[in-house]
């Protein structure tokens, strides 16, 4: 971000940047920077809090009126409200279909499909309330997401609408759509809109059938004789601290 600010300013465009990593701004020294003490992924601090966001935006924009250039780095002193973390003893309010830690692929994919249906009710409610969704970047319809992953787990290459996106990239976009669907469904439930990213990842990768399917897919990839399948399934991104599976 600091580099981009420098290049644009060099091209005659006044810039002001929000920074999440103060050390990077100190090193790159862009013209105007507001460092904010917020979680990575939340540069404006808090979702659904217009007043909080507005204050951050205004603080960043007001740096454009500071005369003491060419480098201004200001700290934003207001913390964002806390989110629920693993240490808080949080538990998902839904009763998800039970899944064995290891076992046959058939029951696992069946549990995954059932779970997707269960999530769908809350997801649809979330979309209705918010008027938007972040699911869909993969280009696949929601109904096709689980089938895509289950086909891969069965050792076959899924059919895709277009070949414009490399399959390795598509697999991760599909996986991200599924994670987003679960997250949007969960955070739509009463009192769950403050679940933190780490807690959500813990829940997804250790308690849901979807998470188990992702682990199974990665594990199966290393056993494939087909090099393409091996590359595709091996590329599936899982947080390093959770990569060993449930």
């Amino acid at each position, binding site marked *: 971000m600091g580099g981009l600010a420098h290049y*644009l300013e060099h091209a005659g465009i006044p810039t002001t940047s929000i920074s999440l990593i103060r050390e990077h701004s100190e090193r790159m020294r862009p013209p105007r920077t507001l460092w904010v003490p917020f979680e990575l992924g939340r540069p404006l601090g808090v979702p659904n809090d217009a007043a909080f966001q507005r204050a951050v935006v205004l603080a960043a924009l007001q740096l454009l009126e500071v005369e003491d250039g060419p480098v201004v780095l200001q700290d934003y002193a207001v913390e964002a409200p806390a989110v629920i973390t693993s240490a808080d003893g949080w538990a998902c309010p839904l009763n998800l279909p039970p899944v064995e830690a290891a076992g046959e692929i058939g029951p696992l994919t069946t549990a995954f499909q059932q779970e997707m249906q269960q999530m769908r009710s809350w997801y649809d409610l979330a979309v209705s309330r918010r008027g938007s969704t972040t699911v869909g970047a993969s280009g696949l319809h929601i109904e096709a997401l689980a089938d895509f992953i289950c086909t891969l787990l069965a050792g076959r290459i899924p059919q895709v609408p277009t070949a414009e996106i490399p399959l390795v990239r598509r697999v991760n976009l599909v996986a991200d759509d599924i994670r987003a669907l679960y997250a949007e469904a969960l955070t739509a439930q009463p009192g769950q809109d403050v679940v933190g990213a780490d807690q959500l990842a813990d829940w997804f990768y250790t308690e849901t059938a979807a998470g188990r399917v992702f682990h199974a897919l990665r594990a199966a990839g290393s056993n494939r004789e087909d090099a393409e399948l091996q590359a595709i399934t091996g590329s599936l991104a899982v947080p390093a601290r959770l990569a060993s599976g449930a």
Partner: protein
Amino acid sequence: MWLCTSAVRSGVRADAFSGMLPHRWAAGSASHQVQDQRKISMARLQDLPEGMRSYLTDLPCPVFATQPWVRGPSLRDRKVAIISTAGLHRRTDRPFASGAGDYRIIPGDTARGDLVMTHLSQNFDRTGFQQDWNVAFPLDRLRELAAEGKIGGVADYHYSFMGATGPEQMQAVTGELARLLHGDAVDAVLLVPI
């Protein structure tokens, strides 16, 4: 000059909170913690997991020989555009490739349901953006500030780059981007990371 200041909004330096325990270690029920508005969040390097901290600490950052500084009119007369590095784009647009240095155009009339993120890193929170696009792309906030007369206006076009891309990868297109911004009469860019 090198100016490093502390935000004056509350009159308290951010590091004044450094004596507090990170919220994940603090005692109390979840509901109590959620209501607490002054918990330490995880954007400070020392609060991040070791792997992530090392990665960010060691990340190469360019050092520039010059320090351009462009002045402009009063904030209330400026037209503001957002440039994000969250890998945002319209739902119908091409997903970003990892490490790509190109950008996507986000028209100012883009509906919130039409914006998706294809920066797929596992290293940052996505739930905030999933609930409210303004947490990463504060277009509604800019519109409000324009309606209140705090800024002169909102650009007709905004832009997004892919995250985790080296600045030098983006340099090739910044000249054309500047021309596009000039064409849109933009005289202030708000750069928003993820």
